């Protein structure tokens, strides 16, 4: 184990790393409250919520309201699908079945292939099939290729540590497979399922590399931000960043709070 000096150096490194992680984001959150005549960098020229107001003016920064509701809806669709599909696949992978190795490697491939290529492939496939790309069809599928591998890997880790004795006990008492899943397996894995949901939501809400070539005519929020980075030179960009960050933290916070309250209630019983 490292000596006292080593520990101190490592502590310094860790603190510097945390500052490095948070510093820039905190800076733009501060700068998004820039005064009306302020620019992209310090000093602050007064404090205002002017730039947040600008977000909702149509002509100022494109269609912020529509893109944000599109992104939220898409993230909800992706989250729900990811939870159900990875839970089912996780149950399937509890035993080997013909083709299970292939499906596993395919899922890993889906995770590690460069996102731009996946998006390009889906865009071309839809083009060749003469189907219009849309955020709710092609981009939805493109995002699933990104969220499902995370979901499956979490499920595999959970079922690795799962004690089958509970389930066998339920079966011995006469529960049907469905009943033992619903009343025994699901409650035990529920926290991980919520973890998958949170993962799915953030991965989808912030995704742009696979969505870019598959979203069709209507932009999601990250695509709106990506477009703005080249055209917008006012703090409205920071306001959009702050709003988007706040929104995703709010959703995660609400989910964690619900989880915590459910746990407290269960323990109280």
């Amino acid at each position, binding site marked *: *184990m490292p*000596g006292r000096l080593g*520990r101190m150096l*490592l*502590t310094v*490194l860790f603190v510097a*790393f*945390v500052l490095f*992680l948070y510093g*820039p*984001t905190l*800076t733009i959150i501060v*700068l998004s409250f820039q005064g009306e005549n302020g620019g*992209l*960098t*310090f000093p602050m020229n007064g404090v205002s919520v002017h730039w947040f107001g600008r977000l909702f003016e149509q002509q100022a920064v494109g269609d912020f309201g529509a893109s944000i509701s599109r992104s939220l809806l898409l993230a909800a669709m992706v989250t729900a699908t990811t939870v*159900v599909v990875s839970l089912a*696949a996780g*149950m399937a992978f509890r*035993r080997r*079945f*013909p083709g*299970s190795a292939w499906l596993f490697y*395919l*899922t890993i*491939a889906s995770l*590690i*292939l*460069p*996102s*731009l*290529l*996946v998006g*390009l492939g*889906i865009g*071309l*496939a839809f*083009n*060749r099939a003469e189907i219009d790309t849309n955020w709710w069809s092609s981009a939805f*599928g*493109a995002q*699933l*290729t990104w969220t499902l591998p995370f979901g499956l890997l979490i499920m595999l880790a959970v079922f690795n540590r799962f004690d089958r004795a509970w389930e066998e006990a339920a079966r011995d008492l006469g529960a049907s*497979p469905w009943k033992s899943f619903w009343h025994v397996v699901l409650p035990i894995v529920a926290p991980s399922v919520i973890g998958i949901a949170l993962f799915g939501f*953030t991965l989808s809400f*912030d995704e*742009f*590399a696979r969505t870019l*070539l598959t979203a069709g005519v209507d932009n999601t929020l*990250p695509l709106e*931000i*990506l477009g703005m*980075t080249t055209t917008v030179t006012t703090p409205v*960009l*920071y306001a959009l*960043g702050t709003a*988007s*960050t706040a929104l*995703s*933290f709010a959703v995660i916070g609400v989910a964690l709070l619900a989880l915590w309250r459910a746990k407290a209630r269960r323990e109280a019983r």
Partner: protein
Amino acid sequence: MRGAVTSWLLAAPLALVLAVFLVVPLFVLVVVSFYDYDSVRLIPDFVFTNYIEVFGSMVTWRTYAKTFSFAATVWVITLLIGFWIAYYLAFVIEGTGKRTLLFLICTIPFWTSNLIRMIAWVPFLGRNGLLNRALVGSGAIDQPLEFLLFSDFAVILAFVHLYTLFMVVPIFNTMMRIDRRLIEAAVDAGAGFWRVLWHVILPLCKPGIAIGSIFVIVLVMGDFATVRLMSGGQSASVGLMISNQISLLQYPAAAANAVVLLAVVLMMVAAILRVVDIRKEL
């Protein structure tokens, strides 16, 4: 047999999604890479011109060299930082609660958009940014540094900022599974800090290092947005080259480039997997 049918039914949705949105698209990508094209449309054909252009152009080779150098630099930096951060969390910090808290602090930025985390460097690195002000103010330099934003430096900084976490998490994971008695035994046998690190911890961390490396290298190799944003269009990467061809509607050329990139990335992953066996981790 009934078990296999049940498993198939349960796995079918996953298989279906991957078939429609991964296997078929990759197949189409390969097919289109052999198409001909003009300025307005794709012409179904089987020609090798796209590949001849890819391999015949000096731009391709230079762009690959640039992308490899980004990947190598970012890999070394994220590995060094990631390893020591993971080490700190796993071996220096004592107590599960404190460890979990610090680990969560490291992962929270993952919940914000990568794009916003890139944009966030602008007020820091710009000509009138915080860093230049501080340096000029302290008298360290007379003129603001121009290379901070819109440069290779900015690209690498952003990559390290975005992807070090992908190194920390898998390495931390393997470190937490190391049996502490092995380390105690090594110390009792007289091994110092560096010998324990080199002969006990590092070999046992290899799978985590491999998984982290795969993540970082693949993310950098396929990137287009970070390079475009942070270099202000002054640097190049393979992903950016492909995305430029897409915006010019040269889909078959982009597809051929994409197929080559796909092959390169898969070879790099295979090379890592040959060196380190990660199956125990999965």
